[in-house]
């Protein structure tokens, strides 16, 4: 119909929040729609477009056999595949099941477990198909989401800064909550993107954007646990929306093993 790029938005196991972040671009939505043909976006449109897609945004993690097949189809039909959000990039909160006994989870939760067809793990998209870019966040930041789409439209490489949350704290003049209030904060090991909102609201960062570049959670945890923060408090902090990101899950494991010793 036009030389617009065709956009597909696909959802796997997730909360919809990352897709909503696209609809939350109130100021940019219409302008974007002029440049992108929204070919498949169940949450926003009744048109169920068939592929191929120039750009696909994929939200959610893979946790069922059917989804495992579907993501392969999406990949096949997409020129550029961008995963959005913690679910898609690291498994999300539902990846907490990965370490636990799946059987027990289903039994504990569903009266008729036999109706439930689900995989034992919730895994990131990149574990199953090649991904062109991973946009972090739980949820993703609307500005970043719009920016990467615009960059892509203009033929620029998709990228976002991968430094720590701390840098953004300092840029906005937020006083460090760890140093000045003794609150545990994952900011030093978490990738920026949210605007350092948690420390601004006087609470510690809980890691929505996943591990920052070459992050060092082990050192941070060693320091915190040596300064009156019990392991029982630190482990859940690492086991949030990016619990399955290797840097976080390894640090949690180390803490637990250290505590057992």
């Amino acid at each position, binding site marked *: 119909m036009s030389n617009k790029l065709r956009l597909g938005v696909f959802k796997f196991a997730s909360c919809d929040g990352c897709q909503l972040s696209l609809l939350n671009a109130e*100021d*940019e939505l219409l*302008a*974007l729609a002029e440049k992108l043909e929204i070919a498949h976006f169940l949450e926003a449109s009744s048109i169920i477009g068939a592929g191929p897609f120039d750009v696909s945004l994929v939200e959610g993690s893979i946790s069922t056999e059917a989804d495992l097949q579907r993501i392969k189809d999406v990949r096949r039909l997409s020129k550029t595949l961008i995963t959005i959000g913690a679910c898609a990039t690291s498994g999300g909160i539902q990846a907490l099941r990965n370490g636990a006994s799946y059987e027990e989870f289903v039994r504990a939760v569903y009266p008729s477990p036999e109706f439930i067809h689900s995989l034992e793990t919730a895994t990131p998209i990149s574990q199953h198909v090649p991904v062109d870019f991973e946009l972090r966040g739980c949820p993703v930041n609307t500005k970043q989401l*719009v920016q990467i789409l*615009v960059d892509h439209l*203009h033929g620029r490489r998709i990228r976002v*800064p*991968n*430094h*720590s949350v*701390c*840098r953004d704290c*300092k*840029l*906005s*003049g*937020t*006083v*460090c909550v*760890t*140093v*000045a*209030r003794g609150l545990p*904060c994952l*900011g*030093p*090991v978490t990738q920026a993107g949210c605007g350092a909102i948690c420390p601004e609201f*006087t609470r510690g960062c809980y890691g929505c954007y996943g591990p*920052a*570049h*070459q*992050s*060092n959670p082990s*050192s*941070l945890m*060693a*320091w915190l646990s040596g*300064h009156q923060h019990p392991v029982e408090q630190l482990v859940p902090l690492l086991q949030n929306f990016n619990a399955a990101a290797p840097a976080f899950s390894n640090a949690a494991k180390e803490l637990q093993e250290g505590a057992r010793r």
Partner: protein
Amino acid sequence: MTSPLFLPVAELPKLLARLLELGYKVIAPTIDQEAIVYSEIQSVEDLPRGWTDEQEPGHYRIKPTSNDRYFDYVVGPHSWKKYLFPPLQLISRAISGEEGWTFETCSDAPEQLAFLGVRACELAAMKIQDRVFLDGAYVDTGYQRRREGSFVIAVNCSVASPNCFCTSMNSGPRCKTGFDLALTELDDGMFVEVGSSRGQDVIEPLSLHAATTQHLNSAENLYARTVSQVSKHLNTDDLRNRLMSNLNDGKWDSVAERCLSCTNCTMVCPTCFCSHVSEVPSLDETVVERQRKWDSCFNLEFTAVHGTPVRNDVRSRYRQWLTHKLATWHDQFGESGCVGCGRCITWCPVGIDLTVEVNAICGGES
């Protein structure tokens, strides 16, 4: 210049009033977010009177004191660089018109700022940044405007924190130059030194009495007491060469194991000046602004050349920071880049102490 004056404590508001009347926006220590930070004040009531700070590596708390002094603390998480070299600046703008792009250089409206409560190490830090932005081949005109427009009221430290090592860096605790006015807070008022004709003009109408010998003695005692409180030391003898001859030392690995590469030390450091200019296009890309933000040598992208960072591990990035600050800064600017304020030690989330690291890497415990 003129001989020292005395400002009775009850008349401190007059000094503030005078500055406001001259059109200055007065920036001073205030309490916010459980810390002593710099922001605009309207009255002396906004100062952290009766408060002090407690600092250790990776630790900072404010607490009330038993006295009602205005300046009984050291330096907090902010430094004056946030006013002279703001964290976020608009540098230029490109506008797309019929004949293609046109370019504008942006400059912020000059604001007259009066900094109240500048410590000796901070005066030193300003001079260091002057060298970076004013004395090189290129002048940062925005910095120049802000620097020249600001009025500096220094305050001599009456206490030192365990993280202060200004005596090693020869930057304090006594304010010697670089101020318009310098205050020393005594029991009943401020011992005032005038450091410039601008300072003279400001203080003149307050018709202050000359300080007495007793004031002078109390001030001297206070300086001596503060010096004696400075407990941290860095051996700076030949430090540049000691560090530069240890660049391949295995001990950098040990600090790299603890360093989070989180950028906090560089952000709080009053002399660090790294920045990055990035593009901020409007959605239709007809107006593109270029924005300069504080950056840090701890960020991986900082040295990326064709996608691959030159300093591709924490070890090389920590080494860059420490050796730049304490060694290569000498080569570039003729002095050390560190003023011994201790901020990087206090605000490191895992309490890494550069003085300890220097000793570990190239010895020289003093």
